[in-house]
């Protein structure tokens, strides 16, 4: 048993909302009020976007012995799957969120807290308070059950690493429904006597506004993407005690800049939906991660699994891990099948399975380009004659969080499968290589001798590039240029963009542009 929240006094602040601070007494009163209004089902989908309301909803569910369901995203398809998993599910909402036909409870207006002090509820360690879902390789979300004891344990360890004093205020750019936000904002605040900000600031100016409305000491819980944009905005950020980052690896240079500019330490958190957070590091102090107390690696089958009092059975991590000592280790990227975009994970085989199950798709594959920054986008190629790109996108959007929508989505005649039918990574990579843009090198050999002092790329070079980039991946050597019109010269340093579309008769029209300037256009036809 341990207390639901560890704030020492009835008047301790548990949250900062738009209209001011909320005391422990008020919070407990509202949790009891809401618990009395929850419908019968044992499973609750908490869609509240306001972090304080989400926390009241979670507390009310715990008090009534209900389990909160946390799917990775809220697409119509995922909500259907959640309902299949738990037919008694109802949802709690605090705005116009679509509940996709689920029975719903709108967040109610609350009464003032009574004068008599409300006791802090004690929660059994083995009580199941949440089920989080990961996207499985067959497209069916996989449930992971979380008990109160396991979650409370891990966020106490996290707070020790932060060294933030009681009464610190947590401000987060990540949603409470995501495992990182769930642990690092909600439970961290509850189990360590911190206050949480109700807001989920998005733009850099929002982050600064929210920070300026709460007292110090402040802890910002965020992601590399938000931290980079905050840093690049040039805005003056109110004083911070600590910054936390998770969801994607943080480049050490960015970590250094953040610490220098925000004048506070930055801690990175490592974990997974299955295990919760298990380790942390300060990137500016070195590359090694330190496991939280009680967690250790065990060798299982062919890989390392995380094990601990609350991770039982052990869980295989989707990353390549190199232990350095009992509790220190290095991370060397992800296993090939796992994709992580801005903290949202999906299995590549699951995405391919989905793509190939869409109407009209004969063959298709997703491709994850090498990660070069904090956000890398997926690409995909499909063989789907007669299917419109918009139709395919709409079908994908029905099933996938938008971050997984491919960019680009190439329509091809055939995928570059080898003789055994396999799709080598190198062949896919070549298919998606940066074929669509080309920055004309300043020292391109074609410039010497042509138009001295006013270098212009010869048309024949442009056409060669166009043929190579457009026909490549469709059927090299089968196309020739049948017509062309040059409208504007291309010179050194110009960033050219190649585009094409296929006509019903098999001809392809292409366009070469640079910014808003059209450089050339024409058509390709199949060699007879």
């Amino acid at each position, binding site marked *: 048993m341990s207390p639901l929240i560890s704030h020492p006094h009835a008047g301790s602040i548990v949250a900062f909302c738009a209209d001011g601070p909320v005391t422990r007494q008020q919070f407990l009163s509202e949790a009891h009020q809401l618990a009395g209004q929850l419908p019968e089902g044992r499973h609750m989908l908490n869609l509240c976007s306001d972090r304080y309301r989400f926390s009241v909803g979670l507390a009310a569910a715990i008090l009534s012995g209900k389990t909160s369901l946390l799917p990775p995203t809220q697409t119509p398809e995922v909500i259907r799957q959640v309902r299949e998993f738990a037919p008694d599910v109802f949802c709690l909402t605090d705005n116009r969120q679509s509940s996709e036909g689920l029975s719903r409870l709108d967040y109610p207006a609350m009464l003032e807290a009574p004068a008599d002090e409300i006791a802090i509820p004690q929660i059994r360690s083995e009580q199941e308070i949440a089920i989080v879902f990961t996207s499985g390789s067959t497209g069916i979300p996989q449930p992971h059950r979380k008990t109160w004891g396991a979650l409370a344990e891990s966020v106490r360890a996290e707070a020790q690493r932060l060294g933030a004093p009681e009464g610190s205020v947590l401000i987060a750019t990540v949603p409470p429904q995501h495992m990182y936000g769930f642990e690092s904002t909600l439970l961290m605040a509850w189990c360590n006597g911190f206050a949480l900000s109700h807001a989920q600031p*998005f733009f850099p100016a929002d982050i600064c506004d929210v920070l300026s409305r709460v007292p110090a000491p402040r802890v910002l819980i965020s992601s590399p993407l938000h931290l980079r944009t905050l840093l690049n*905005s040039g805005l003056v950020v109110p004083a911070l005690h600590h910054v936390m980052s998770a969801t994607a690896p943080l480049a050490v240079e960015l970590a250094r800049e953040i610490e220098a500019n925000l004048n506070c330490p930055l801690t990175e958190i490592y974990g997974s939906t299955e295990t919760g957070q298990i380790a942390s590091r300060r990137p500016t102090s070195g590359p090694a991660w330190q496991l939280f107390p009680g967690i250790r690696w065990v060798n299982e089958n062919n890989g390392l699994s995380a094990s601990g009092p609350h991770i039982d059975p052990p869980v295989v991590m989707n990353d390549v891990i190199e232990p350095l000592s009992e509790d220190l280790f290095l991370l060397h990227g992800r296993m090939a099948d796992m994709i992580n975009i801005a903290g949202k994970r999906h299995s590549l085989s699951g995405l391919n399975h989905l793509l190939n199950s869409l109407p009209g798709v004969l063959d298709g594959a997703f491709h994850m380009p090498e990660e070069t920054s904090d956000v890398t986008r997926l690409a995909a190629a499909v063989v789907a004659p007669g299917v419109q790109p918009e139709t395919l996108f709409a079908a994908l959007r029905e099933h996938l969080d938008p971050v997984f929508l491919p960019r680009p989505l190439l329509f091809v005649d055939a995928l570059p499968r080898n003789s055994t039918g396999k799709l080598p990574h190198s062949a896919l990579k070549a298919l998606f290589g940066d074929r669509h843009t080309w920055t004309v090198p300043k020292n391109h050999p074609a410039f010497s001798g042509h138009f001295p002092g006013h270098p212009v790329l010869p048309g024949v070079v442009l056409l060669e590039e166009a043929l190579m980039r457009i026909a490549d991946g469709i059927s090299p050597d089968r196309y020739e240029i049948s017509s062309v019109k040059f409208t504007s010269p291309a010179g050194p340093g110009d*960033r050219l963009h190649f*585009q094409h579309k296929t006509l019903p008769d098999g001809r392809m029209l292409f366009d070469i542009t640079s*910014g808003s300037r059209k450089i050339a256009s024409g058509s390709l036809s199949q060699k007879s």
Partner: protein
Amino acid sequence: MQDNQNSALQKEVAQLMVECLNLEITADQISPDAPLYGDGLGLDSIDILEISLTLSKRYGLQLRSDGADNQQIFGSLRSLCTHIAAHRTL
């Protein structure tokens, strides 16, 4: 005159979006009234954050979620440009 200025700004913003987000289309293929989110151009929140940074540098304005209805600002290229024109400092 007003219309010309707006259409010049729309062209410029469309071009910034194509370059900043590596979109697979050209600037003049972004229809001024098609939604930027979801079914239209298909941008997501990561894109919106990226483009907001580019816009803040180019036009000296900070986008906010609560100041105005964000969904409406990013409702279309036209509404985004109206917002920029009203709030730009550069």
